[in-house]
């Protein structure tokens, strides 16, 4: 994870296009300015950053589902639940599934587990629209770096 750069997903473990499901991994850094404030002496990954992590896994799922034809932007977060704490150095296992592919929007359900235990989950909705000029290429490059399309199931 590069928390301060909002690059939350380190790698895609598995992409199952037919099932509309993605599994991804993220390693929480040992140190970050985020932890200095949240909280002093008791570093915890903020819930909003866990939400962003779920949103990014979902976003990559939607990108792959749409074959990079459109860009998803987070529109709504429903029923977000943060069930446990997690701190520096943790490995996060993120899953997201496509619940609905609408016209101009998409809905996913995402969850994060840590050491086999449920950490958080939410229902997320995205607005999908044509890529803003110049964003298409960096998103494809980022997707390539995290292995979004390597080992994707057809």
């Amino acid at each position, binding site marked *: 994870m590069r928390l301060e750069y909002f690059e939350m997903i380190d790698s895609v473990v598995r992409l199952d296009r037919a099932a509309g499901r993605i599994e991804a991994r993220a390693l929480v850094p040992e140190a970050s300015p985020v932890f200095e404030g949240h909280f002093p002496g008791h570093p915890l990954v903020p819930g909003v950053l866990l939400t962003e992590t779920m949103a990014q896994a979902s976003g990559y799922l939607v990108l792959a589902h749409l074959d990079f034809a459109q860009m998803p932007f987070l*529109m709504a977060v429903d029923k977000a639940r943060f069930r446990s704490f997690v701190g520096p150095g943790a490995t996060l296992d993120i899953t997201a599934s496509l619940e609905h592919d*609408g*016209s101009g929007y998409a809905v996913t359900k995402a969850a994060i587990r840590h050491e086999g235990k449920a950490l958080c989950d939410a229902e997320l909705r995205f607005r999908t629209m044509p890529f803003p000029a110049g964003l298409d290429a960096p998103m494809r490059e980022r997707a390539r770096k995290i292995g979004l399309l390597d080992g994707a199931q057809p």
Partner: protein
Amino acid sequence: MSDDPATGSATFQRVADIIAETADIERDKITPESHAIDDLGIDSLAFLDIAFAVDKAFGIKLPLERWTQEVNEGKVPAEQYFVLKNLCARIDALVAEKAAKA
């Protein structure tokens, strides 16, 4: 009493209930003649919430992107899609189309 076939139709009742709940609008204010945006004040985000609920309830996919493009290009007046009685007629057509393909 209007003789509009959509008045009090089952589709309208379901759509109006969805709008009331999703967009937190008083059910009494929602009529078949209501314009979703101009009369009910539904913004684009709330309209997508409603579209999701409608898509799920009726098992269809409202072609919002096509509708928006047609309205923006001036090919179709916005009333054709956003006045509720017309929206309900479109929903009925999509449901019938899906049933015909099944």
